């Protein structure tokens, strides 16, 4: 078998390969040899680290999973930052959670890299030399290579974060990922909307990161360490517990008292919430989810990787990794749900439902998927909130695959539609240039009209199933997995969550009830908008010429879709609950559960009996969703409809509300943004009036003082100088008498001295 | 000259009886440890001793003058004083009377005090010298532990009166003569002293008796050999330097008749001139006595078996021998030129005496404590070597001078010389 210890010990190679790739690509750009070469380097890098992490995962799957979880194979840790009495250690922590996620990231990223190597092909022709007018291929190559550099750096960040052994180190890679998301979202920086979206994404995640940072610092302040291993130890957790509620005054911060108006909240809960703030920002949970839909401005592979598979799931990973801290917030038994977990669960559930509902009323193919991602993340957070640890992680893994699949699928669709538009123009000549080009009105006041030239607007699509069969099939597989249709991976993981919620509801936890109810309705809504999407895009006749001419994508784009679809379908099987009637025993009694379960400090993570009800409920919800979707969108071709059928069902105002994302952006804009601007203006005014005033006053005072000084100087100082001169001249005249040059006189004086000396002695 | 010697002998006899009496007196004062004779006793004894010494010296001096004129006369093939008294023996007394009765003229321009004091102060140094002369084993006036040094110290004070005479008489020539005399005496004092250091080194003591003890067969002192045998060069230098000190020919520049009138005592007449003359002879005798002590072993008999004869006879014989040598020199050598005289002192005698001193030092260490014969052998070898070296040097110097001599003449003469030589060849 593979030697786990050796592998774990050298696990630091994983982030290194992609980092190496990043550096090599930089060199290539610098030496002007960008283009395809950089793509191959990036792919090679991520392939290497992906392979390594998969092998590591397989090795950890072996029997040693148990003790691996108990004593994570801490690879070499290097003394990184001198910290007063000790060093901040920089190392690699390999445990079931880390290994599994790393493997997932490796595979997903590999597929996405291959996909984007052809998808980004368009970069070469995109740029025209402003002076000469023809295509600036060099710039194109450089941009292409730049894309792959950013992506490789991002992969390094993700791997580093997942395998980090230390919170601060994790924070480091967390920031790298934030940076890469900003760079990649704003990749096409000549588009103002992209630049705007990148800034927005970065700012919002930063707010979340502040929470994370404060959480880490408090952990360090109270427990003196930020290593996962030492944090997870029961006694440090107990110590955290012992600190007890903050009575408002928090001493020990730099030696003076700090009054925190959070009377009553126990420190442990406070820390947990701060850390959760970080994941809210990064995983786009309710208050800070606004940046994810705008992040779709970036190229599709980016959205697929960063905003579906890896980065957003990092927030959830963080909570999973620090689960004991959250769980320990409860005073007594881990089984209880602590105050912190309450908050987590509530936010998770709320986000899930909210995002799902908004998703229904979106026309942009990628935005729908974006809201779907937010809602699925809400599912994971909700699961963690109620203690369904294994289910959450499982859903994290499965969701990564099928969401990546969906995004890449949509990318291939957009690609196809773009080609369709070009051909449309070229074949048709100016056919629909002027008159034919008309924007299909949404028919609903307040909802944007479909821009004929926007390849991403679903209203311009339709009937692509025939045009792009492979993409259609893989997209369909992804959709089925997402909506939780049985056998597909989505079902197992989402159902796991709901069944755990149901079980917890049984234990009398009020929050579990809320979670289950919202979860199930969200499942229904998810099924509905996915169905809507599928039908608008693939079913019925093509609503535009572009859709009519959309060709199938290139093989490099389609094959990753196939691989991901395989994962989307089969991955669920490793998590089939043991008690499941037919498949459970067949598949070895929920191996994933055993594998991941031991991580919890409690160790003996009991598996509750299988209860059919939640499963049936979720399947039912999925089915109704699909039915409704078919009913509204399946039968009649989208093109013909002047108004969105959903609007007619739920009423225009509600539809507009959903379409405009509950106007949250506008609310934020009105409150925060405009507020800070106003504050800034106030500041400026104050500065001008008060500060300048003071400065002028000081200068006036200075001038008065100077004049007094002048007077003193002329009177006193000159006086003394002349006095000194006079005294010294007097003295010198007197001395001249002594300096006669006669030797004998000197001798006489000398002996007078001797005489005095003798006299002293004698008398 | 010959009969002069027995005369000295007879003179010596008369003194033996006196000496018997004297020894009683002297021994009385021998410094036995602890003998604390009363102060008055010491004074009386000292005075008596002093008068005896003065008398002996006075008589000696008189007959020395007589002896000298007889000897010089004989050397110059003439008789010398024989009119006054038997063989002219009374001649000295005649001279003395003449001195006393001649008028004593004092130049008015002279500085009265200094002029007279000069004349007076010439005599004491000469006399005091005799205090340390050791006639016999215990027959010494003042057995100072630094006898030799005392003698030369007193010798050096003789310079002062010369200067006073020269300056006091306010006479250009006298002053010039005095300056010359002082320069000469001063210059020759250095070689004189340096020559005897070798002797002191071997004897290891300064007191006269100590010196004599270490020379003779009597007493088992270290060298046990007369120092003249060990230090011949030292003896020669001492002799020459002393003749210069006494301003006798060939070094008698100061009162060289032919040159500056009578030197520093031109203005002196009568008894004052006599005093200068008297002092000169005193120094001659005392110097030869010390010479005898230092180099000829004082009262030590040359060989052990001759110990019978009393010490003082040996002493007087050796002193008279040296006096004869001085007179002999006067009779035979021409006078040296002034610059040759001075150069001879500094450029010849001083270097040689220094070298001699170093060699003696080295040898003294080598043969320390050996038998007298061995010591004598070693030293003779060294001395012979030194003399040989000296001769070779002098010869070399003369050849060098000879070569240089020719080039001095004027070119014309050289041309003629060259022509002659060519002709001859």
């Amino acid at each position: 078998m593979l030697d786990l210890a050796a592998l774990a010990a050298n696990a630091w190679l994983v982030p290194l390969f992609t980092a190496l790739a990043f550096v090599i690509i930089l060199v290539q750009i610098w030496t002007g040899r960008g283009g395809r070469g950089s793509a191959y380097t990036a792919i090679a890098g991520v392939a290497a680290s992906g392979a390594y992490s998969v092998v590591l995962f397989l090795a950890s799957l072996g029997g040693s999973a148990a003790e691996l979880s108990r004593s994570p194979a801490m690879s070499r840790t290097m003394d990184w930052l001198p910290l007063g009495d000790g060093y901040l250690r920089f190392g690699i922590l390999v445990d079931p959670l880390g290994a599994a996620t790393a493997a997932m990231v490796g595979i997903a990223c590999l597929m996405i890299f291959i996909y984007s190597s052809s998808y980004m092909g368009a970069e070469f022709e995109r740029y025209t030399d402003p002076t000469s007018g023809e295509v600036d291929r060099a710039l194109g190559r450089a941009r292409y290579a730049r894309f792959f550099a950013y992506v490789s750096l991002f992969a390094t960040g993700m791997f580093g974060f997942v395998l980090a052994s230390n919170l601060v180190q994790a924070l480091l890679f967390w920031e790298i990922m934030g940076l890469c998301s900003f760079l990649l979202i704003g990749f096409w920086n000549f588009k103002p909307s992209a630049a705007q979206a990148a800034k927005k994404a970065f700012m919002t995640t930063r707010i979340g990161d502040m929470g994370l940072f404060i959480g880490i610092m408090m952990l360090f302040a109270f427990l003196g360490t930020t290593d996962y291993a030492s944090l997870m130890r029961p006694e440090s957790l107990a110590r955290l517990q012992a600190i007890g509620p903050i009575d408002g005054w928090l001493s020990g911060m730099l030696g003076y008292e700090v009054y925190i108006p959070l009377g009553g909240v126990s420190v442990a809960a406070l820390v947990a919430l701060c850390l959760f703030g970080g994941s809210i920002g990064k995983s786009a949970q309710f208050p800070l989810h606004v940046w994810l839909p705008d992040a779709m401005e970036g190229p599709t592979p980016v959205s697929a990787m960063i905003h579906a598979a890896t980065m957003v799931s990092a927030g959830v990973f963080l909570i999973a990794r620090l689960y004991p801290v959250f769980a320990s917030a409860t005073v007594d038994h881990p089984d209880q749900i602590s105050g912190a977990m309450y908050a987590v669960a509530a936010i998770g559930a709320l986000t899930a439902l909210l995002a799902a509902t908004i998703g229904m009323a979106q026309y942009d193919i990628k935005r729908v998927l974006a809201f779907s991602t937010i809602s699925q993340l809400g599912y994971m957070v909700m699961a963690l909130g109620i203690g369904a640890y294994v289910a959450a992680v499982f859903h994290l893994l499965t969701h990564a695959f099928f969401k990546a699949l969906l995004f890449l699928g949509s990318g291939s669709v957009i690609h196809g539609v773009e080609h369709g538009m070009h051909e449309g123009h070229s074949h048709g000549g100016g056919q629909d240039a002027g008159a034919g080009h008309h924007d299909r009105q949404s028919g609903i006041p307040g909802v944007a009209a479909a821009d004929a030239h926007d390849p991403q607007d679903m209203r311009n699509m339709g009937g692509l199933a025939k045009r792009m069969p492979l993409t259609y099939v893989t997209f369909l597989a992804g959709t089925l997995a997402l909506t939780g249709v049985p056998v597909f991976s989505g079902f197992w993981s989402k159902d796991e969550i709901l069944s755990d919620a149901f079980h917890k509801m049984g234990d009398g936890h009020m929050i579990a009830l809320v979670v289950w109810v919202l979860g199930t309705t969200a499942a229904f809504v998810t099924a509905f908008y996915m169905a809507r999407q599928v039908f608008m895009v693939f079913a019925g006749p093509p609503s535009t010429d572009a859709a009519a001419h959309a060709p199938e994508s290139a093989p490099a784009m389609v094959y990753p879709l196939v691989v991901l679809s395989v994962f989307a379908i089969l991955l669920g099987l490793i998590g089939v609950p043991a008690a499941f009637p037919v498949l459970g025993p067949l598949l070895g009694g929920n191996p994933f559960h055993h594998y991941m379960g031991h991580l919890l400090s409690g160790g003996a993570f009991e598996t509750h009996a299988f209860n059919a009800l939640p499963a049936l409920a979720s399947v039912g919800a999925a089915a109704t969703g699909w039915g409704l979707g078919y009913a509204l969108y399946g039968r009649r071709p989208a093109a013909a409809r002047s108004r969105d059928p959903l609007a007619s069902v739920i009423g225009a105002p509600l539809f507009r509300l959903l379409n405009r994302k509950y106007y949250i952006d506008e609310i934020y804009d009105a409150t925060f943004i405009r507020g800070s601007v106003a504050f800034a203006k106030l500041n400026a005014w104050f500065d001008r009036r008060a500060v300048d005033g003071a400065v002028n006053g000081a200068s006036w005072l200075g001038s008065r003082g100077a004049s007094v000084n002048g007077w003193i100087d002329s009177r006193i100082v000159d006086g003394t100088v002349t006095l000194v001169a006079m005294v010294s001249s007097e003295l010198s005249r007197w001395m001249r008498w002594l300096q006669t040059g006669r030797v004998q006189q000197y001798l006489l004086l000398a002996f007078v001295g001797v005489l005095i000396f003798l006299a002293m002695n004698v008398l | 000259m010959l009969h002069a010697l027995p005369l000295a002998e007879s003179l010596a006899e008369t003194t033996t009886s006196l000496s018997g009496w004297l020894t009683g007196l002297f021994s009385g004062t021998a410094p036995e440890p602890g003998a604390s004779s009363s102060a008055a006793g010491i004074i009386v004894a000292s005075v008596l001793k002093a008068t005896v010494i003065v008398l002996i010296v006075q008589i000696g001096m008189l007959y020395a003058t007589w002896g000298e004129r007889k000897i010089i006369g004989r050397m110059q093939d003439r008789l010398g004083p024989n009119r006054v008294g038997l063989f002219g023996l009374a001649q000295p007394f005649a001279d003395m009377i003449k001195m006393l009765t001649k008028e004593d003229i004092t130049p008015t321009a002279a500085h009265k005090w200094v002029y007279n004091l000069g004349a007076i102060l010439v005599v004491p140094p000469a006399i005091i010298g005799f205090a340390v002369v050791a006639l016999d084993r215990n027959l010494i006036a003042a057995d100072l532990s630094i006898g030799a040094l005392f003698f030369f110290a007193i010798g050096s004070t003789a310079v002062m009166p010369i200067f006073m005479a020269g300056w006091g008489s306010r006479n250009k020539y006298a002053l010039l003569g005095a300056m010359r005399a002082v320069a000469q005496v001063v210059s020759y004092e250095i070689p004189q002293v340096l020559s005897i250091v070798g002797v002191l080194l071997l004897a290891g003591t300064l007191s006269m008796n100590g010196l004599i003890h270490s020379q003779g067969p009597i007493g088992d002192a270290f060298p046990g050999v007369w120092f003249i045998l060990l230090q011949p060069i030292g003896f020669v230098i001492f002799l020459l330097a002393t003749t210069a000190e006494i301003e006798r020919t060939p070094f008698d520049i100061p009162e060289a008749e032919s040159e500056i009138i009578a030197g520093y005592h031109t203005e002196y007449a009568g008894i004052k001139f006599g005093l200068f003359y008297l002092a000169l002879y005193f120094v001659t005798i005392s110097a030869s006595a010390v010479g005898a002590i230092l180099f000829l072993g004082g009262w030590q008999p040359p060989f052990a078996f001759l110990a019978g004869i009393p010490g003082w006879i040996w002493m007087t014989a050796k002193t008279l021998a040296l006096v004869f040598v001085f007179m002999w020199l006067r009779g035979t050598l021409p006078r040296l030129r002034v610059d040759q005289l001075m150069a001879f002192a500094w450029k010849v005698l001083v270097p040689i005496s220094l070298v001699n001193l170093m060699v003696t030092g080295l040898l003294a260490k080598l043969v320390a404590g050996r038998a007298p014969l061995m010591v004598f052998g070693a030293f003779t070898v060294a001395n012979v070597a030194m003399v040989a070296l000296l001769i070779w040097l002098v010869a070399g110097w003369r050849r060098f001078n000879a070569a240089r001599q020719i080039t001095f003449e004027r070119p014309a003469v050289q041309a003629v010389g060259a022509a002659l030589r060519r002709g001859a060849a």
Partner: protein
Amino acid sequence: MEASIPLWWYLLVAAALFGTGLFGALSRRNAVGVLMGIELMLNGANINAVAFWRYIAVPSGAGLNGMDGQVFAIMVIALAAAEAAVGLALIISIYRNRQSVLVEDFSTMRG
């Protein structure tokens, strides 16, 4: 020979010599006179040295044979000789340049 002479007599005589020498050095107009004064002062000091050699107990083991005083005196005598020689040479050369031997005339360093 009975009563030995107390030490301070010698010191007194030395002081007297030194004082007269000092007076000579200070008051004499003739440079040679000044030099003579200095010689006297040196002699005074010498008497002190020899007196101390003679009277003061020699701390045991300090000097090899306690002759420090005499050595001191001899060195002073030698130095006095050297000093006299050089001093008088100086005076003579100044006399040749200035035709005067009075100390007052030597007051300026130049010329």
